[in-house]
């Protein structure tokens, strides 16, 4: 009887949907790839010149690895000389083709003009640069005497396509090199990897192309301040096919004989460069094995790479710091939903000095604060009982806005700050957070520096520069040169080749590093409203969703560790944006900063 009853219960259980049961993890299904691909078509028989030109332009947007189909639109001579890899021109709306002298079609010679407005260019080194201005190139067609087919015999070098096609076909990947200009590394002996973003074609074997690009060296802009662990002349061994990781994510990279003599330490740095570079690509690479001269040089796993070298995104902040309602320095554990701030130990947290803005060193042992009037910069230790001391730097600006900016620490313990005094503007570096401030030379910089943020790698600096009514975001590289000038003891520090990362924004109000080569920017376009967005250091827009809109943002901070939530100071106080959620209020206060 009991068995029968049990059977009935069991059957009843089977016959209805379960409302309880075991806990089980959900495997995330990979997001389906809905990318649109264009399939290039070879020229059809007796195609008109217009069809030839349009077909050629269309073939440029396809995934054809070597543009074989596009070359079929060219005369054999032009096909030989045309080098699509030289450059990529991105137009806002795709190239238009206008026929010149259309009435002379029957003469066997015809010209078209490709038109459009330039948005950006990608040079031979695959380095992206924003561009503007009209695009105007000539395309010339001839009619083959024998076959009677129209073909292009004069074609501009490189590839041209519209913006959305560019976004579909290309992706930004960071190459990693090691910072070379640092006189010393503070706290850690690991070489600091610097991201060097380049654009590669998304569907055309990106792994191999990235390896080749990495071996080819850094882009020109970054070259003076970085070094590559790969010996000069290192390349993939000849005849190497496409590189693909095996089932366990292990990628074998055969190198030529130039790399055959490197030691294990150097080799591991090389492997770390590769692993950092390939980390975002699919299929994922978990381990790199370098081979040269017929033998294995070394093998390094992804975890091993973080022991060999470091990069900014690997540093996880412990606390989020801000200035609380009593103008003291307070902190909240980062990455938690904690909303209860604690004053930091040490003089800045004790309320002896009212603060306007702060910066905490990346090791979170010392902090710098600018007084509420913006006049004085204090540097002190975050240890209870230490004293505040005298200000290390003072400004003589007339108003609060004309005095010191918020300071910024670099990875080596240097403290950067700018003086906004219109009479004596300047960018200063305090080595080790103290001593005599060094005035940093900024050749080519017009206008006043309104904000300073140094990248974790210490070789790039982001400045908000005010020039008239316009405040733009500029990225420069930091060169330290012991010979070129300055005193004997101190190297001259120069910020060189400042370039705009957000040419379209005319009012940048706040910014912060948000990754190895990424910043989060609050600004306003011409005629637009204030918005918050991510930008790459090369000026391109990264392929990530922008943060949710927030009004009245006065300050923003993000960690280079992308897991830490974005934090902003807005009219609602200090708010943060956890991943996948809306803005949340944290607490009252101003000037939130992550270490750095």
């Amino acid at each position, binding site marked *: 009887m009991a068995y029968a009853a049990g059977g009935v219960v069991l059957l009843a259980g089977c016959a209805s949907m379960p409302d309880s049961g075991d806990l089980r993890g959900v495997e995330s299904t990979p*997001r*389906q*790839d*809905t*990318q*649109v*691909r*264009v*399939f*290039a*078509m070879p020229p*059809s028989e007796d195609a*008109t010149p*217009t*069809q030839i030109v*349009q*077909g050629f*332009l*269309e*073939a440029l*947007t*396809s995934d054809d690895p070597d543009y074989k189909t596009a070359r079929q639109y060219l005369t054999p001579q032009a096909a030989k000389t045309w080098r699509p890899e030289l450059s990529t021109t991105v137009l806002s*709306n*795709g*190239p*238009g*083709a*206008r*026929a010149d002298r*259309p009435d002379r079609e029957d003469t066997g010679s015809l010209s078209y003009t490709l038109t459009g407005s330039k948005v950006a260019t990608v040079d031979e080194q695959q380095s992206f640069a924003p561009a503007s201005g009209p695009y105007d190139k000539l395309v010339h067609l001839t009619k083959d005497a024998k076959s009677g087919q129209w073909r292009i015999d004069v074609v501009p070098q490189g590839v041209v*396509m*519209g*913006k*959305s*096609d560019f976004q*579909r076909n290309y992706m930004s990947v960071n190459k990693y090199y090691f910072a070379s200009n640092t006189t010393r590394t503070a706290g850690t002996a690991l070489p600091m990897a610097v991201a060097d973003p380049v654009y590669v074609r998304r569907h055309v074997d990106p792994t191999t192309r990235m390896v080749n690009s990495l071996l080819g060296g850094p882009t020109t802009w970054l070259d003076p301040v970085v070094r590559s662990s790969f010996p000069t002349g290192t390349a993939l061994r000849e005849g190497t096919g496409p590189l693909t990781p095996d089932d366990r994510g292990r990628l074998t990279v055969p190198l030529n004989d130039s790399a055959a003599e490197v030691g294990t330490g150097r080799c591991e740095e090389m492997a770390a460069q590769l692993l950092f570079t390939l980390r975002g690509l699919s299929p994922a690479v978990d381990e790199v094995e370098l081979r040269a001269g017929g033998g294995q040089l070394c093998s390094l796993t992804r975890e091993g790479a973080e022991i060999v070298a470091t990069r900014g995104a690997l540093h996880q902040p412990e606390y989020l710091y801000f200035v609380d309602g009593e103008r003291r320095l307070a902190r909240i554990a980062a990455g938690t939903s904690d909303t209860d701030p604690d004053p930091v130990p040490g003089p800045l947290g004790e309320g002896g000095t009212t603060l306007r803005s702060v910066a905490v060193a990346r090791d979170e042992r010392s902090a710098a604060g600018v007084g509420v009037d913006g006049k004085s910069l204090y540097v002190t230790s975050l240890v209870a009982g230490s004293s505040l001391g005298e200000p290390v730097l003072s400004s003589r600006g007339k108003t609060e806005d004309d005095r010191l900016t918020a300071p910024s620490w670099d990875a080596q313990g240097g403290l950067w700050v700018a003086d906004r005094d219109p009479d004596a503007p300047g960018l200063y570096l305090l080595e080790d957070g103290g001593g005599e401030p060094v005035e940093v030379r900024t050749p080519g910089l017009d206008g006043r520096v309104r904000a300073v943020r140094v990248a974790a790698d210490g070789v790039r600096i982001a400045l908000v520069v005010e020039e008239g009514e316009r405040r733009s975001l500029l990225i420069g590289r930091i060169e330290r040169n012991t010979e070129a000038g300055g005193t004997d003891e101190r190297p001259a520090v120069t910020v060189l080749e400042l370039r705009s990362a957000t040419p379209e924004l005319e009012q940048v109000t706040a910014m912060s590093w948000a990754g190895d080569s990424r910043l989060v920017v609050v600004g306003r376009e011409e005629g637009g409203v204030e918005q918050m967005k991510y930008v790459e250091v090369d000026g391109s827009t990264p392929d990530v969703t922008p943060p949710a809109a927030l009004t009245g943002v006065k300050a923003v901070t993000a960690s280079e560790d992308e897991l830490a939530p974005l934090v902003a100071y807005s009219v609602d106080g200090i708010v943060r944006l956890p991943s996948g959620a809306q803005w949340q209020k944290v607490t009252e206060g101003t000037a939130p900063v992550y270490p750095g």
Partner: protein
Amino acid sequence: MSGDSAASAPGRPGDRPERPVGRKPAGSRWGRLFEGGLLEGGVQGSPVIRLFMRWVRRPLLPVMRLWRRNIQLKVVATTLLMSLGVVLLLGFVVIGQVRNGLLDAKVKASQSQATGGFAVAKQQAEEAVSVTGDEETAADGRPSQSVIQWMSDLVESLSSGGQGAFDVVTLPAADASGSGRGPRASGQVNPTASVPAELRERIDENTSAAQSYTRIVYDTGKESQPALVIGKQVNDPNRDPYQLYYLFPLTQEEKSLSLVKGTLATAGLFVVVLLGAIAWLVVRQVVTPVRMAAGIAERLSAGRLQERMKVTGEDDIARLGEAFNKMAQNLQLKISQLEDLSRMQRRFVSDVSHELRTPLTTVRMAADVIHEAREDFDPVTARSAELLADQLDRFESLLADLLEISRFDAGAAALEAEPIDLRDVVRRVVSGAEPLAERKGTRVKVVGDQQPVVAEADARRVERVLRNLVVNAVEHGEGRDVVVRLAAAGGAVAVAVRDYGVGLKPGEATRVFSRFWRADPARARTTGGTGLGLSIALEDARLHGGWLQAWGEPGGGSQFRLTLPRTADEPLRGSPIPLEPKDSRRNRGLDDAGLPSGGRHGGKSATAPARQPGADGPARDPFALPPTAVTPTADPTALPGNGARVVARTGSTRMTPGTPAGDGTPHGGGTGDGTATRRTSRGEPDSGAEGPGGGSASRDGERDGEASRGR
């Protein structure tokens, strides 16, 4: 009956030779195959095929046998097959309906989605025209606008609406002009392979939307899958047509369908198993009583008439059992009635004989007195006295024979067997017949008496048999020699008596052993023996477990052969002397008239009666007789006194020259053909046997009474 331990003997000797016959061809087939394979090298195909067929069939034979014999297997297998068929049919119908239902829903949803998509594409093209129309006015009317990017953006925006639910593909129209000709596809779809060519042609010709089923082929390693593709021709901003396709993968539908399939298959399997089990149970319920009835019937037919079926319940099976039992009971009753009747008749004959004996003794004594004094009478009276004495002698011997026969019938005859030398018996008989032979002018020769011929036998009975045979031979030998041949071989001894008289007509060889048989029934039995001599001789031979057989041919004389086992219990396997003598006409190639004859077959042999004593068992029990067709049958009512005289051992009436040779004769003769079933009944000559002998009908008279000669 229990005394006739060899009740089924008539059947058994019939069976025995059959087996070798059956086995032999099999062996010879192998031999033939072997020879064929070796000698007929040119036609190797057929033996190989035959060998293969046999090889294939061999393991199937037990299965076939089981199939033929087992009704349960048949019913269960048929049920399984039929239910499987129904389940399959049902499965096809249900799956077809589910498939149609799924497809209908999917097609409707897909069509509305695709229609919306086509509208969006059209709208975007119009918007693009209106936007760019202001900027770049193409004065020359040429397509100034690049649709390359527009088209890619369109595909992307369309496909982003349904990740995984559908993919979007554009293809150039057949008369592609302008830009944007390159196929575009979302979701790694291979556009040209996934869109069927017929659909493309249709879209080219017709501006309305069309749909088709296809397989989506992916450029990545992903497996292709069935899909519904809906396409339409749409204009781009330059008013150039292109083809826009929506591809809806039917993955989900296929999953649902395979779920239904799996469910149906499982359910079907269960149903088939259930039906099979039900059939097995039901058939078992029916077959078990039927098998029991078959077993009981077999036992009944084997004579165990008291067997009954167990009947439980009141259902159809129980009724069958009851009817069966009733039938068995009635049979048992009838059989015992008939047995009683038969026993009564035998006792009556025996009693009559005994009762006649007492007055006969008195009559005899009186007749002897009269006979002694006959010389005192007048000649007529004296003659009457002599006749009286003669007929009294005859009466006495007839009575004695009848008593003897009734003793046999009653099973009262006892065999007093002891080792005897048959030569002594033969000598005694021959010397006893010497006076008669001299009277007839016949010489009796004894052949084969150099060696002792010893057998365990009853000397008195053997002597009686042989005397009967020798006297008969002398009487019917027409003055010619009579040869008595003795032989011993194997486990048997034989004595054959050969005469060269009128012989036997076809069919007579068996009938000579019948009681009171005579060739011409019209003639009164006034002379000779009682007509029971050979019958008694046959019974004597049977008592020994031996054979008494006759052979004869018209005009060629006859031969009677007595074969006895060397030891009393041993069954006979053959006889040392062939039944048909070597000097028969046929063997010499002569016809009835003594002329050489090629094709005629005048020879008539009859291996009549004498068989094991049990041979009369079945005859006495007619209801038990039928089982073996080979067994001779007789109408009991046609037999005088009792039904036991029916003998079967007639054997072949036409023996081939070869068969008599050796000791195989009795077997061959006994089993051969339909003649073994011939009925022998007094006074009814077998018409069939009469036929060939018609030519010598004129001599019938001379042979009259041949069989009745005795003693």
